């Protein structure tokens, strides 16, 4: 036993110091970050750098962790901040200004701030299990209000907006469509109509969604999910087993981007990493890796993307509006949906 000790103690000590390697670029991302390994290896080789990808959980969790550690930043560059979180990051003074030269090829509407480099965007949208509706000869709902009808009782699963970014996006969509008060009474109605709340996308999609063995044929996911269903089908189907359900006011545009972290080291390499995310190679890889759209123009999408529709947005929320309301909205949502609070007590 003593022998083991003599071996393990130096091991602990050396690994403590090994982590402080100089030519490392620390990139913090949300846990869904994914790019072709060869691409990342090529970036490492060309810039003679070792990438440390720190997966910090869901996007919201990631920003919280950055705020908690802002005095001694855990990373040099962040990818995965989106329009719902940007203002929070800016208020906490987390980001340092940098605009990549590659942004000239990106439509103006995605540029949100001088410290934010848009990389991709996606639509959070309701998805349905087509087989369920066919088998039960059930008509699809046409408005958000339809979801409160008895025939759609116990059919919807949503992610908790306090722990999941698609969940938050869906809440924001309802607030944008129905107004704050209207949204609360809508959610109270959903609660009474048996809405199920999951922690995150994985458990909503893989344990509750009826397509994968659950009982709920309507799930909050992304507009690109039906395309991914075809791309990752066991045998190439003629059409997707799932479809988007674009009820008016049920979709939300998420713009994701990268930024320098204030106080980070290796600023030059960090800038190069942002440029790399906007490069043609990375932009081409993004749609089938993370199932979101590239911001750069002229990128060819995988053919399965024909199963991904584009919702029409009638109203929008600015990052500033989101920042001002978000915490209160989520708190009140929790009170209404999870704690059965009376609407008068909000």
């Amino acid at each position, binding site marked *: 036993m003593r022998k083991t000790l003599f071996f393990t103690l130096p091991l602990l000590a050396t690994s403590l110091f090994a982590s402080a390697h100089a030519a490392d670029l620390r990139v913090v991302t949300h846990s869904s970050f*994914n790019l072709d390994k060869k691409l990342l290896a090529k970036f490492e080789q060309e810039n003679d750098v070792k990438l440390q990808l720190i997966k910090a959980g869901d996007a919201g969790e990631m920003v919280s962790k950055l705020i*908690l550690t802002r005095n001694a930043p*855990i990373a040099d560059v962040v990818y995965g901040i989106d329009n719902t979180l940007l203002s929070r990051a800016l208020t906490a003074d987390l980001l340092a200004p940098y605009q990549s030269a590659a942004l000239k090829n990106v439509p103006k509407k995605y540029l949100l701030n001088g410290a934010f480099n848009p990389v991709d965007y996606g639509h959070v949208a309701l998805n349905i299990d087509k087989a369920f509706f066919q088998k039960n000869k059930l008509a699809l709902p046409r408005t958000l209000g339809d979801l409160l009808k008895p025939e759609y009782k116990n059919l919807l699963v949503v992610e908790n907006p*306090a722990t999941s970014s698609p969940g938050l996006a869906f809440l924001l969509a309802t607030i944008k469509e129905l107004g704050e008060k209207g949204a609360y009474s809508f959610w109270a109605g959903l609660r009474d109509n048996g809405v199920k709340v999951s922690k995150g996308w994985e*458990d909503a999609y*893989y*344990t509750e969604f009826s397509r994968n063995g*659950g009982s709920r044929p309507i799930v909050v996911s992304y507009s690109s999910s039906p395309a991914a269903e075809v791309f990752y089908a066991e045998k190439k189907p003629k059409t997707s087993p799932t479809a988007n359900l674009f009820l008016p006011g049920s979709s939300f545009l998420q713009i994701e981007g990268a930024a320098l972290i204030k106080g980070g080291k290796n600023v030059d390499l960090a800038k190069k990493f942002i440029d790399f995310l906007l490069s043609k190679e990375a932009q081409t890889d993004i749609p089938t890796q993370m199932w979101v759209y590239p911001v750069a123009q002229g990128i060819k999408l995988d053919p399965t993307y024909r199963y991904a529709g584009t919702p029409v947005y009638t109203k929008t929320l600015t990052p500033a509006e989101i920042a001002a309301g978000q*915490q209160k909205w989520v708190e009140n949502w929790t009170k209404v949906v999870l704690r059965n609070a009376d609407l008068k007590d909000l």
Partner: protein
Amino acid sequence: MQRTFTTFLLALIPLGFLGFFLIYPFVRALLAGAEGGFLRQAQEVLHEKYYWERIGWSLQQATYSSVLSVLLGVPAALTLARHDFPFKTTLMRILMLPLVTPSIVAAMGILSLVGARGLTGIHLQDTAFLVILGNVFYNQSLIVRFVYAGLLRIPEHTVQAARVLGANRWRVLWRVTLPLVLPHLLGAFSLVFLYCFSSFSLALLLGGQKFSTLEVEIYTLTLYQLDLSSAGILVLVQFLITGLAAVVYTNLQKRTSSTGEFRTRTLPRPQGLQWLQVLFWTGLTGLIALAPLLSVFLKSVLGQEGITWAFYRGILTSDTLQALWNTLKFSGIAMVLSVVVGGLQAIVTFRRASPALDALSLLPFLVSMVSVSVGYLLAYPGLSASLTLLIGAYVLLAHPFVTRTVLAGLRSLSPSMLQSARVLGASPLRVWQRVILPLLKSSIRTGAAFALASAIGEFAATLILQRPEWTTLSTLIYQTLGRPGAQNLGQAAALSSMLLGITYMAFQVLEEDAAGQNSF
């Protein structure tokens, strides 16, 4: 005097470890919350009826789950310790598999049995019973294995003496066997209770937000609302409850400490009606452990048109190989370190015989892991992507298993045997080498098996610390489940089946006795 000094030296490693990986980060996280006016916050939080309901539910589900685990586990352990029968070691290993199952895989398996469209036709989805069933799936094996280990330590002559003196079988069970096995049972019970009380993902995956536990509230408050001071209040409440449970347990365990040597003995085959008993209890526990896993395996081979190998072909990549290697490497290191830290901690606790040190060994289960992980960020931001923190965190969660089993083993060593060795002129070191360690071997093995199991399943999946080349099988499963599509679901099921198979084999290596006899 010299003895105290050696104990002190030995204590340095486990105490230093706990200080670095648990106490300092935990205090840092609490202090970060205290800046926002603790007292006012405490008033506010403790006024909320909602939080009291969460505390109540956490206590309820932990109580139901651990009592149910005992009711299932103790009879199974009794039959296992009394008889020898075919496939017994296989069964013992199967019982360990739930411990390595990633929570989302377990949830999928359980739901496919008793969910909305479950194979059994029983529909428990959206009920509290599902959460309890999930907890029992994970924890009954802890009870079985701990109690089984305790039963094998009861000297046969004690039981025989009672029988000769005229006690019937029930009386022997009630007055001799159970009191002697009680410390082991209490140890397992407290671990299960604490596990269930602070459970995080399983409660959330199977119960949805409606049945979320205190730890889930702490997580949401900390990492989404950045309300460290409110979270801090709940952390303290949780610590108060778990701490109380630990003190009660250590007192009980000390009072019932037994002595007895571990020995492998040949057990009789069951006869006549005993077969029924054996089949019923081992069948029941085996079924609870195995059924959800089998249905996950079914998912990995059943495609649209019957049996398919497409999902297994899909995982035949270098990524999977790398993940497999990492899983073995990291959990192997975590296991060895757990044996060192946990073993030393047990020795120190045994020598000092102090209830405080005893309770300290449960500390990782007493404090909120969410706060500790935030504490890591605050205390060691430079280490956030380092392997040290990753492995340290796993040793932290795994080493109590070693401490508990080794401590129970030390307490049942017969003091007269050690004394006679000393009288016969052996130096203290030699007594350790030649007497104590060989006698402790089986305890260490049990502890190591538990440590390995907890490391293999959880490795990196719940942690913030990641690097692409550090992907393990469990993180790969989560990554695969991060995308929609039948192929991904099937591949995740295939990876999970592979993880379980590898673990089964790892236990085979770990548990093989030198004499070719499986003591454990």
